[in-house]
């Protein structure tokens, strides 16, 4: 049933439309144009296969770009524009999820992974450093020597 929806059109194997979206809005201020580019790349086309509204040529994206242009020219701040878009389509439209209780884990996750990884490495290293001497067993040493001997210089 979803397939009959009008905007969806024909589903190709690659649903990536290769039709560049090129529009020629005239901005009153180059700074607005820069913000337009920035915001149009951060907003997701609600009815596309993972595309921002800047790259999508779906009619809905065209409308959203027009709306974005008007809002910028009317002096809206980035925050107001994003809140307004989220008000219409939900958090889904933001490629940069806002930071809140639910998304805290998303934003802090990588930092936590890094801390965990660092801790893991630190513990592994500390264990290795307790005995300064080489504790290889004789057999291990022999094998290693034989391997290293195959190259005089030992790199990587």
């Amino acid at each position, binding site marked *: 049933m979803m397939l*009959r929806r009008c905007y*969806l059109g024909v589903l190709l194997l690659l649903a990536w439309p290769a039709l560049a979206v090129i529009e020629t809005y005239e901005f009153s201020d180059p700074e607005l144009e820069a913000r337009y580019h920035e915001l149009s790349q951060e907003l997701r086309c609600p009815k596309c296969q993972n595309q921002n509204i800047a790259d999508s040529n779906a009619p809905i994206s065209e409308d959203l770009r027009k709306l974005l242009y008007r809002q910028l020219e009317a002096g809206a701040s980035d925050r107001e524009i994003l809140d307004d878009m989220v008000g219409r389509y939900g958090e889904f439209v933001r490629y940069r999820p806002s930071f809140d209780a639910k998304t805290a884990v998303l934003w802090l996750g990588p930092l936590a992974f890094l801390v965990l990884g660092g801790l893991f490495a630190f513990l592994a290293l500390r264990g290795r450093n307790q005995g300064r001497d080489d504790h290889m067993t004789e057999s291990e040493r022999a094998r290693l020597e034989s391997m290293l001997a195959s190259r005089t210089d030992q790199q990587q």
Partner: protein
Amino acid sequence: MPRRLKLFIPLGLFFILSLLLFRGLSLDPQELPSALINRPLPTFSLPALGEERTLRPADVTGEPALFNVWATWCVACRVEHPYLQQLAEEGVAIYGINYKDDSAAAQQWLRDLGDPYRVNIVDREGTLGLDLGVYGAPETYFVDAEGVVRYRHVGVIDERLWKGRLEPIYREMRGETAP
């Protein structure tokens, strides 16, 4: 044997991940709930189709109703149309939002296929559509007597869907219990 137990951590993490992936198989990542649920209909001031008046939210609210987004360019809307007609005959209040369409063509369509709508809001530029968060047609919004959006259905409404999922929602809006 705690050292050995540590080695089970990757397996445990993978198990959790595969449960999520399994759940993911039955979800549709394309299905978007409306952001407008439990919020009032956005304000608008738009012409009525084929009439010389301007419609505002107050003109179309007051009793629970369906707001059906449609257009003549929308193939699926033609599929849906006869069933809307039938619902209207059964007394369901349906308002039309004629979305980004040519008004003359829309009037012709209603003359040819019948008119299930109490009145049609002409959304020529798609501004109301944007405020509603419409991303295609057909879409149908269920709005209660206070003008608050209760549900949004995306796609064609047919008998099976109406009887199964949508009618209970409509009846609940009317304060009736499902039959």
